[in-house]
């Protein structure tokens, strides 16, 4: 089980190596990045093969780090973090494949990319709130540079907005954690210790502390109305960064809500439960409606991410094990599907046509020019709508069932969101690939003049990446129990007992 900490080391080392060899050869940097990402993913899969599900965190590393403050370098894993670790490896590998065409400052690109991935691994492995926070912040800075240097539309604005939102969110988290630690008189930053310290605070303080930590993390998870960084950031980002952002980084926020915020103060959670649920439900429907009227295809995907992350937050807010397990499953599912969607839009379509505007895309016979992209996008769209057979279906269904147990009204609103999601996804598919105007046929069967369009064919790397992601969403769609068998025992951990009630897993 001690393989997993190596994912962090390996990925940081890969980042450094990519930076160094990238100065000489872009191709070498690509291969370094691919090997690193694939290596990290293999480590997570190997660890998963040997994983024995159980309640509570299974410690991997535990060493004193800053004894004066009681900070321990404590890494541990349970079914929830393992699910997300596997997701990170998968999306990172696919992300490298989809950025094979980065030609400018290639080494630096992959260095930032892998640093971000390493930070994400670190977050999912941390069992000490301060270590968690350190890795969380390590993941913020590379995002700014990935977007500002290699991004597209309005990139400097998008990058700065994203960085500031993330950092402001993490400042809230830090304030809340330090407050709990200092005022509650904790002797360390273990999750359990912090929860014990929070329990000694006055009820008012608990409410405030919980809000600081939860909404700090929820900012990164794209909770309404703090979600506005997500669409602009996703749109401005280069493809691989969009995939990581939507696929993994937003999960950092949701994971922080689940792992750090919820156990911190059951009292605070009880106070905020209803507002959080409504914000999540509004987010699902609102972001879906906004996605319905976007003219830029990438914005459609960006808002759909916010909408789908709303399900995760709603699942957490419902506070029973069924809904929470659905939320974790949805994190995985959305990570894969969002990665796929951004890959099609950003890499397969935009890099070739240089437009993402639906009005311009529909004028192109894209279905004929890029049949592979069409197939992938339709599959990804179906998965995103939550059709059975894909991972979105068991995830959203589990969430809805769980939420129904807590408050049927929330479930009804969320179900409305599912309909909206179907609408905007179908609209995007239709306008992109199936709306090419019919050419008036000339008398005598003569074909009208047709401009010769040539788009570069889909590369092998893109196909490989797409196959990986599609395989993952289908596998989990058909066998959700593979992941649920890891997730459900983890939710029985004593840390979650006070918050997650009822609901047989």
């Amino acid at each position: 089980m001690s393989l997993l900490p190596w994912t962090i080391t390996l990925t940081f080392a890969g980042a450094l190596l990519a930076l160094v060899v990238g100065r000489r050869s872009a191709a070498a940097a690509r291969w370094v990045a691919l090997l690193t990402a694939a290596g990290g993913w293999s480590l997570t899969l190997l660890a998963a093969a040997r994983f024995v599900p159980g309640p509570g965190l299974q410690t991997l590393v535990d060493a004193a780090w800053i004894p004066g403050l009681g900070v321990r370098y404590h890494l541990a894993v349970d079914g929830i973090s393992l699910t997300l670790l596997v997701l990170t490896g998968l999306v990172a590998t696919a992300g490298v494949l989809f950025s094979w065409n980065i030609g400018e400052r290639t080494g630096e690109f992959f260095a930032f990319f892998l640093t971000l991935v390493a930070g994400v691994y670190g977050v999912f492995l941390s069992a000490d709130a301060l270590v968690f926070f350190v890795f969380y912040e390590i993941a913020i800075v590379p995002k700014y540079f990935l977007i500002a240097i290699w991004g597209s539309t309005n990139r400097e604005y998008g990058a700065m907005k994203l960085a500031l939102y993330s950092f402001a969110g993490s400042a809230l988290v830090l304030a809340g954690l330090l407050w709990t630690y200092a005022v509650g008189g904790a002797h360390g930053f273990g999750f359990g210790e912090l929860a014990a310290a929070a329990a000694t605070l006055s009820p008012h303080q608990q409410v405030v502390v919980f809000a600081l930590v939860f909404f700090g993390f929820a900012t990164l998870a794209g909770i309404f109305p703090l979600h506005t960084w997500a669409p602009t950031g996703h749109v401005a980002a280069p493809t691989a960064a969009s995939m990581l952002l939507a696929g993994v980084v937003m999960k950092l926020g949701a994971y922080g809500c689940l792992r750090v915020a919820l156990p911190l103060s059951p009292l605070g959670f009880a106070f905020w439960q209803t507002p959080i649920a409504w914000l999540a439900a509004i987010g699902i429907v609102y972001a879906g409606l906004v996605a319905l009227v976007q003219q830029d295809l990438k914005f459609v995907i960006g808002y759909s991410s916010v909408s789908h992350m709303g399900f995760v937050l709603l699942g957490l807010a419902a506070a029973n094990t069924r809904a929470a397990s659905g939320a974790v499953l949805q994190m995985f599912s959305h990570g894969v599907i969002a990665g796929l969607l951004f890959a099609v839009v950003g890499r397969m379509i935009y890099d070739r046509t240089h437009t993402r505007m639906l009005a311009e895309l529909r004028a192109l016979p894209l279905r004929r020019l890029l049949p592979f992209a069409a197939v992938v996008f339709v599959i990804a769209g179906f998965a995103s709508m939550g059709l059975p057979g894909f991972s979105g279906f068991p995830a959203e269904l589990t969430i809805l069932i769980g939420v129904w147990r807590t408050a049927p009204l929330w479930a009804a609103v969320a179900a409305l969101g599912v309909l909206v999601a179907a609408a905007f996804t179908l609209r995007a598919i239709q306008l992109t690939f199936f709306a090419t105007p019919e050419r008036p046929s000339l008398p005598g069967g003569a074909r009208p003049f047709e401009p010769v369009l040539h788009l570069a064919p889909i590369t092998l790397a893109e196909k490989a990446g797409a196959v990986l992601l599609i395989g993952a969403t289908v596998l989990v769609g058909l066998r959700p129990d593979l992941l649920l068998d890891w997730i459900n025992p983890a939710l029985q951990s004593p840390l979650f007992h006070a918050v997650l009630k009822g609901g047989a897993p």
Partner: protein
Amino acid sequence: MSPDFAGLFGALRPEASLVLGALAVLGLDLSVFRRRAPEARLRLALGVGILAVLAAAAWAAAGARGPVFGGVLIFDPLAVAARLGVLGLTLLTLGVTRGAAAPRHPAEYVAIMLLAATGLLLMAAAQQLLLAFLALELASLSLYVLAGFDRDRPESAEAALKYFLFGGMAAAFLLFGFSLVYGATGSIDLPVIAGQMARQGDNPLLRVALVMILVGFGFKVAAAPFHLWAPDVYEGAPAPSAALIASASKLAGFTLFTRLLWPDLPGSAGSAAARSGEPGWFPAVALVAAASLLLGNLAALAQTSVRRLLAYSAIAHAGALLLAVMAAGRFGPGPLFYYASTYGLATVGAFGVIAVVARAGRCEAIADLAGLYRRSPLLAGCLTVYILSLAGIPPLAGFFGKFAVFAAALRLDGLAGPAGWLALLAIALSAVALYYYLIVLKQALVAPPAAEARSIPVPPLAALALLAAAGLILWFGLNPTALLGHF
């Protein structure tokens, strides 16, 4: 009690080696190297200066402990750490000087730097008002000269004059405060003063004295509302001078300030845990800290000059350091020292990068850093480390400095006292700070270089100093106990 001159001399060997080094630099330059080119003279002066600092550091590390010369000097963990910190930062500043354009009189420049360091060393160990004042003046007068060393540039002369006028005023306030303290307690020895203060309780005269001292130190460390000199000095002074003013001088200044405010400072975190109640100067320092945090961070947003931006960020950092001073009474000076020394590392580095860039062209506006990643990847990489550390991004040292200080401030009395609220304010403002720090990095790493910009050569010694600063920031960040563990 007969004065123990042998003990004094033994304890002051670091200072002696610095002064001898300064004399050697001047003498060699005057005799042997008189007709050489300025670059060669600078190299020689730096070589001798670095040897002197290294010798001083060796003496300081191995030298005396405890009170010396009847308690005029104290070599407790804080003093020893601060002295080593001052020497380390001076060493880096000397290395960085190699990267700047050679000053007209290189030997004098280096010699005055060594004299400034001597004053700073004495400040760090002073435990008597008179010695503290003399040490402060030695350091300040040297720094005034350093700020105005580029006589031909009007900005440099302006910087020196402003620094001198404000500094002189500050010294006057400080001396007035000291004399009031002496009048109220009848002593200039800090331990005696502490005892008297504890006995006299709430004495209005002492309050006035403490406010005077606070004003004086507010000027010295550029805390709002006494910060007005800082932007102009940081902008006009030669870059290595600004580096010394912003780093070693700040570390020594805060050390002395802490000692004055907490005359019976605990040597370790545990020994004074029983201290109860807060001293009378708490509200005043809290006010200055809040003003510095707000003004520094908000005014930095509007800057277009790199150095002015660093100056306002320095004001904001002074606010955080004042928080650390407040917390030092109960939790020891560890967080303060960690914060001040790692802040110094990042600032020396940032000014070093500015110096090297300025030598190859110009480096005034933030936009002059454009395309640094292509002009010199080394400088761009180092600058990224410094700026991110200043912004407080883990795992760099700047984060743990903030973390340790804020945790100590919050543990002081939770949210019942001003320190806790100030810590929350500082955390909130760190998100503001990230914006202006990212603006700098955006130019350095994202923006393409200007058409006429060429690659920047970095002299090996300067490159070594910059890499050492970046490496130390990373090392102390990954291993905070390396510094925090000494207290």
